[in-house]
């Protein structure tokens, strides 16, 4: 019974997948669950194996060992039309007209010509690109081409959208436009896999993450839980005064001098110590401007996880 529940929750289940190339292992016994309806961050340094995994999910290549389930079924040809893929290396037929090209790509994803036409019209109005229909792709700027390619990725309303570095090449205005589209797609029930190096995007958008490093999964789960896991029980305080007396009780790490004689210091608490006690101790010693817990950023988590893994 629990089996069926988990199947319904996950759009993708990667089970013990191994992929080897002639001279290196790209994925080593990787298992990841991607829950439905979330924005999932697939993180990892360059060459970690993210693209290999994405290609396997897209059925561009197959795994050597292990299996992939899509919505509870073994991944097969029928799932192709339910996935939309925006590769990191963007590309369109340069000499083909924008409209023709989008029609072609949509039909390859299983839409009829008429369906594709109707949906395209909506998108062309939405992005205000009606005049582009008869233009050659080579006449568009790089940002414009990116927009066209984004449309081609989501046009067939896939259940799973895989975006590899979706914001590269966009100016801030268009990046925002795309970001809003992504959130809207999530609202409509699509699951989105993000593969990215940009931690601020992950911070902002992702609900769940998985971190791959040197072909192995290092870490995965909901972003909140992972942050909880990586908490160091460190608090920061910005103050004016002298805390040297507290050095015997707490581990203090002075960080920097601030303006107007204020300083910032990190204070490490033991597992069971309470921040209230700390505050009580601080109050008589100094004038406090700001106090809070140091929540690890995704960037910190990324760096720490990657550096903890010993060099192979």
């Amino acid at each position: 019974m629990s089996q069926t529940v988990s199947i319904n929750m996950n759009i993708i289940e990667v089970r013990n997948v191994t992929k080897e190339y002639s001279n290196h292992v790209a994925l080593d016994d990787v298992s990841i669950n991607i829950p439905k309806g979330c924005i999932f961050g697939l993180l990892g340094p360059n060459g970690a194996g993210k693209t290999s995994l994405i290609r396997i999910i897209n059925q561009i290549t197959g795994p050597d060992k292990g299996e992939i389930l899509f919505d509870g079924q073994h991944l097969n040809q029928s799932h192709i039309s339910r996935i939309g893929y925006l590769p990191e290396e963007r590309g369109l037929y340069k000499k083909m007209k924008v409209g023709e090209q989008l029609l072609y790509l949509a039909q390859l994803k299983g839409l009829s010509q008429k369906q594709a036409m109707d949906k395209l019209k909506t998108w062309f109005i939405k992005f205000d690109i009606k005049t582009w229909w008869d233009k050659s792709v080579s006449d568009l700027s790089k940002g414009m081409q990116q927009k066209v390619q984004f449309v081609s990725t989501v046009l067939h309303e896939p259940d799973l959208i895989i975006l590899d570095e979706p914001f590269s090449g966009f100016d801030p205005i268009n990046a925002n436009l795309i970001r809003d589209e992504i959130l809207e797609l999530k609202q409509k029930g699509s699951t989105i896999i993000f593969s990215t190096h940009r931690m601020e995007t992950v911070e902002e958008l992702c609900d769940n993450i998985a971190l791959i490093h040197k072909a192995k999964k290092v870490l995965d789960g909901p972003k909140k839980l992972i942050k909880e896991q990586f908490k160091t029980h460190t608090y920061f305080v910005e103050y004016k005064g002298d805390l040297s007396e507290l050095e015997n009780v707490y581990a203090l790490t002075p960080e920097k001098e601030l303006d107007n004689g204020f300083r910032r210091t990190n204070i490490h608490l033991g597992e069971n110590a309470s921040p209230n006690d700390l505050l009580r101790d601080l109050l008589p010693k100094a004038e406090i401007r700001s106090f809070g817990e140091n929540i690890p950023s995704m960037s910190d988590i990324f760096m720490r996880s990657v550096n903890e893994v010993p060099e192979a």
Partner: protein
Amino acid sequence: MRNIFLVIRREYLVRVKKKSFLIMTLLGPLLFVAFYATVFWVALGSVDTKTVQVLDESGLFRNEFKDSETLKFAYLDSSIDSAKAKFKSSEANALVYIPKNVIKEPKSVRIYAAKNVSMDLKSEIEKVIEKEIEDIKLGEAGITHKILEDSRVNVNSETISLSEEGEKTSSSGAATVIGGICAFLIYMSVFIYGTQVMRGITEEKTSRIVEVIISSVKPFHLMLGKIIGVALVGLTQFVLWILLTTALTSATSVVLNNKMSEQSPEVALEMQKMQNGMPASNMPGGNVENPVAEVLGAVSSLNLPLILGCFLFYYLGGYLLYSALFGAVGAAVDNDADTQQFMLPITLPIIFSFVFAQFVLRDPDGTLAFWTSIIPFTSPIIMMVRIPFGVPAWEIALSMFLLVLGFMGTTWLAARIYRVGILMYGKKVSYKELAKWIFYK
């Protein structure tokens, strides 16, 4: 399956809509008709008549030079010096001077002309003089003109090919021409369309669209779709060429017929009969020496449906065999410039077949002809050279069977290289690497 059709449709439409396709389609028949027309004009001879003055001091050649459509002879009685002086002001094109002692010194004959004399004119004059001197010398030896006439036999052989359908006049000349044209067309189209497949694949790879496409279409289907799409472009081009050429040649024939009836009614007559489907050998009076009629007659005696059928088969077979290999090269490299290193092993057999074709034309049933028309890599070109001469059915069947096996083999091989190659960016690939790709699981 639906996706293969989508790919084929795109590949086909993109190419057919190109301006270069339109230009090639129109230019091809024009070139062909221009060629065809030139052949006829040459066969008819040039229209303007040349005048040749003859100053014959020996007196042996008076009225021996016969006027023809193109040449008129005028006999002078003046001295050579005054003839030379007057020549410049006259309208004559050449002046032939035959000295008195021509029999003893045949080399003393001189031809004067404002411009260089054509080889035809020179050899005609030499022939007449040689013959006359020969006659005189024979006469001196006691052989009369009568004996001479009787001893002269003119052999003009006709090749008769024996087949189940009975005797048929054929001409090895026509077979040579048809075989040559077919071989050349296949040679050209394998190169042109094979390269198009290669370029198309490299373009998809360098523009990186391939990753999007193969997330929807299996790599093998994409490759196959492209190959078939381009093949259809080639077929469309051939069909359009044949239609346009037929239309243009019939138009040209009408013009030529009119022209010919003015010039030489016999030729025009034969032309018309030829077009009504009468083979040359049935012509009354055996007036077959006319070269134009002879060629047309011989062509109509060949088994044209068989040739056309085989042409289509070998065009497709040869194209499929090689375009798969071209496709593999396109997938292995990153840009057009890198294709060179892998092109050689593919182009060599094509170029060799074309070179062998010249030998095979001379000896269409020899050992070289047999083997090269059986081996799939050379058979598309060589077999097309041989077919107009007649090839045993079992040889054609074997050759076709092996060609089908051949292109299935190259397609399999190409697909193995293709699926790895299209996702391999920024890497210079060696033959060793390619071999490894083939055996990837």
